């Protein structure tokens, strides 16, 4: 299958290793703009590695990996500024306030104050929470602050690893709505999750990761 330069993510027979351990062994997958794709699979299947590879953090050993039209083997620095990765950590500074954190991440791409305000509004961390130190936030509020940073950075590809972990019911609903809104606005979302009921209801398509290979898991 030839690479598709129009796809947001186009992996063809990609092999990646973590040290000596083969984490992806011939993964092939294509993701189009506006999709919300759920990556399913047991622990150690390669879901996190696949997300980190798409973010340019894990090198491609073999195969072709195009993200946003850029070949990750030669051009991963150009991919990074358009990608937002939210893993098990939020990438926030505990001593700074919510607005200071979002402003910092927005400033890395030269976003305006209006964009910061809009992102915070969308994530529900404006007004009362804006001037609260991140160290005083709940897990859900921290997650929403990190997502506001992604929105303010105008990330085109969102890579989320267990995004619902540690969130209460309301925060999970808010997160899902945010992801649907982001996808409707043109962002593309890849989600790795073990909370299948919730994630399957969110995703437009499922991909099973089995022993480092991507297999179609069906659409909704």
């Amino acid at each position, binding site marked *: 299958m030839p690479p598709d330069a129009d796809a947001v993510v186009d992996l063809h027979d990609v092999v990646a290793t973590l040290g000596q351990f083969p984490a992806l062994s011939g993964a092939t997958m294509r993701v189009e703009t506006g999709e919300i794709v759920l990556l399913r699979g047991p622990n150690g299947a390669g879901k996190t590695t696949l997300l980190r590879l798409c*973010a340019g953090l894990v090198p491609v050993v073999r195969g072709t990996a195009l993200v946003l039209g850029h070949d990750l083997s030669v051009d991963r620095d150009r991919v*990074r500024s358009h*990608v937002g990765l939210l*893993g098990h*950590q*939020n*990438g926030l500074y505990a*001593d700074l306030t919510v607005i200071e954190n979002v402003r910092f*991440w927005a400033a*890395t791409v030269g976003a305006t104050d209006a964009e910061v305000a809009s992102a915070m509004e969308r994530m529900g961390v404006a007004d009362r929470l804006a001037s609260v130190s991140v160290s005083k936030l709940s897990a859900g509020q921290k997650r929403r602050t990190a997502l506001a940073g992604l929105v303010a950075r105008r990330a085109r590809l969102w890579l989320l690893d267990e995004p619902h972990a540690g969130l209460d019911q309301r925060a999970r609903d808010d997160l899902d709505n945010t992801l649907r809104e982001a996808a409707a606005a043109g962002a593309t979302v890849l989600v790795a999750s073990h909370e299948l009921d919730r994630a399957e209801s969110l995703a437009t398509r499922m991909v099973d990761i089995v022993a480092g290979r991507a297999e179609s898991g069906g659409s909704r």
Partner: protein
Amino acid sequence: MSVARTAWLIARKDLRIEWKSRVITNQVVPFAGVTMVIFGFALDANTDVLELVAPGLVWLATMFSLLLLVQRNFSVEADDGALDAMRVAGVDARGIFFGKVIGLALQLLVLEVLLLFAAVVLYGETIRLDGAVLLVTTMISATCGLAAVGTLYGGLAAGSKGRETLLPLLTLPAVAPVLIGATRAVESALGTGVAELSDGWQWVSLLTVFAVAFGVGGSLAFGPLIDE
């Protein structure tokens, strides 16, 4: 975004974090002060000896404090994965390096002024007006070198297991030339012992070369180091 703008963004963020957390004023400055007092006890509070060795003690206390500052500087990045997030966001690694060097250097400069003041109060050291330019130049060049080394090895150790013990092991041998050069130059500036004022400038040259070498080398190596 240019390297300079990125550096300014990172330095401003680091200084804001320190201003809010008050780690320097509440922990590092007291630690450095206690170190100076303990040096005094160790040398039996002999004023003649203390006056003679004061420049070296000031720089030793600075180096021990540097380790605390660097640990702190990178723990705020590592605690919630912010350094990784910056790399994913495509923030230029050279900008991150220079930003952290600037933030660290400014914190170190404040500390050095306080330590020099402590040497005057505790050890009876005197500061000569004719050595002021040499003193200030020495402090700036030595501080830039220390901040560059600290940032480089702080970044290297940040992703490692046992980073608390790895950092001093990597940093202290590397900053030994700064300890020697800065001590000799400050001795000249203060007229300690038989040191002449003019002798100090060759040490400032060494400190400048050291700072430039670690500044340039560090900026090039920092990206691959934190990517690993």
